[in-house]
């Protein structure tokens, strides 16, 4: 099942740091540059705050595998580890409003 080009918003993440652990790769912060701090985008990239944990995980895995064809997100998701995807999903899932 391949989603049509660009029909699913290129996903990704937002803002700040995780509260429990100053360590890990800090990946959620890296997402804020494109997707806005606290998962609230002020531009054309999608906001991530509305997504729940499972959606973030499934989307990132689908971008990584190529099941969804976006633009830049496939190239970035291919650089993420399973552990990072899990942390990102947890982080942005917590921001769900």
């Amino acid at each position, binding site marked *: 099942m391949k989603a049509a080009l660009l029909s699913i918003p290129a996903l990704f993440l937002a*803002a700040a740091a995780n509260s429990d652990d100053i360590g890990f790769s*800090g990946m959620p912060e890296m997402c804020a540059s494109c*997707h806005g701090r606290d998962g609230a*985008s002020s531009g054309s990239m999608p906001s991530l705050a509305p997504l729940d944990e499972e959606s973030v995980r499934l989307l990132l895995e689908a971008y990584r595998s190529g099941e969804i064809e976006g633009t830049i997100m496939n*190239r970035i998701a291919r650089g993420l580890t399973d552990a990072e995807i899990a942390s990102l999903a947890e982080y942005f899932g917590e921001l769900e409003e």
Partner: protein
Amino acid sequence: MGIRGAETSRRGLLKLAGASAFAGVAGERAVAGVRGKVVVVGGGFGGAAVARYLKLHSAELDIVLVERNEKFSTCPFSNTVIGGFNELEFVTFGYEGLRADGVEVLIGNVVEIDAGGNSIRLSGGEGISYDRLVVSPGIDFKWDAIEGYDEAAAERMPHAWKAGSQTALLRRQLEAMEDGGLVVIAAPVTPFRCPPGPYERASLVANYLSERKPRSKVLILDSKDGFSKQGLFREGWERLYPGMIEWIGFSDGGNVIEVDARSMVVRTDFEEFRPDVANIVPPQRAARLLDTAGLAEGGDWCRVDPRTFESAAAPNIHVLGDACVAGAMPKSGHSANSQAKACARAIASLLAGESPREPAYINTCYSLLSEDYGISVAGVYRPDENGEIASVPGAGGSSPPDAPAEYRQAEAEYARGWFANITAEMFG
């Protein structure tokens, strides 16, 4: 769960109270209670981001940001000012957001770094001491590299490679040029700030000329034999501006060796050109301020630890952005921003007496060829076993060639979205 729940509700309250979203999460960082004074020199993509994220990780830290100018004009999107899509104000930002976060912002000119004394000195003689120093001062030009091209010449042949008055000057020259004129863009040797920048600039200048002065030409004289996203740029130029942009690489005589700004002459190894507008981007090096502490070790750029960005030459000093050697990461605003986040985490850990954890970095460079034609290159990076910042194999890369128009249009939209979000993250 309890901590996160509390954080989320505190965030909500602060949002309701009108405080910034940053302040909302700042109070509960894992290193809350860490004290110390961090001085940041330079308020661009590296400096503004590291100051903000340090405050986020530990509200108790004293953060002093020293920046030369009251306002910062970004190089990213400054080509849209040169192309006439935006005014300079669109790429110009103040430091109110950082001040609201509790960062002390000083407008001043740093003239010396005293690594042994853990202090910096301003042009007025005032000294500022630090526990940790972060320098993100960007580039300086090698004025002696192209004969005749000095600061005075740049007033007639702008570089426009530090955004601001130079950007506006180049725009005015293009507006004043008659139809049928020749615009020369001299592109420098690698490494330099923003590898796709000269070619995005050629595109957006051609966009303006094709609409308003269609008999004009853009000639890129290059000091190298290839450039970033070359195939994608060429494909776009053929599609959008056929016949208007010519590129001459190093081996074909593109290397500019001399200019005469008064008579508007540009000379390469083989030829002489008489452009109506000359945009000379000279070779570059790390800001010379860094030499006051020997941070470039006699070379052009500063070596750093790939995990913390601490200088290889002096302890307690971190060098970010264009000025440092960051392995596979290009010299871009996004790279500096990404490095700043990892550096802020590392400093918070170091001040808490903990070891910094393994970072990962992302870079994204969008280039516009017209308002609705964008291309990109991205990368994900990690420190490797040799102590270099390396690209993650299989990740990253450029936009595909021969993509449909909707793909190019989407990337142009995303370019604008990127600019909106990264500038709001740093300055909003």
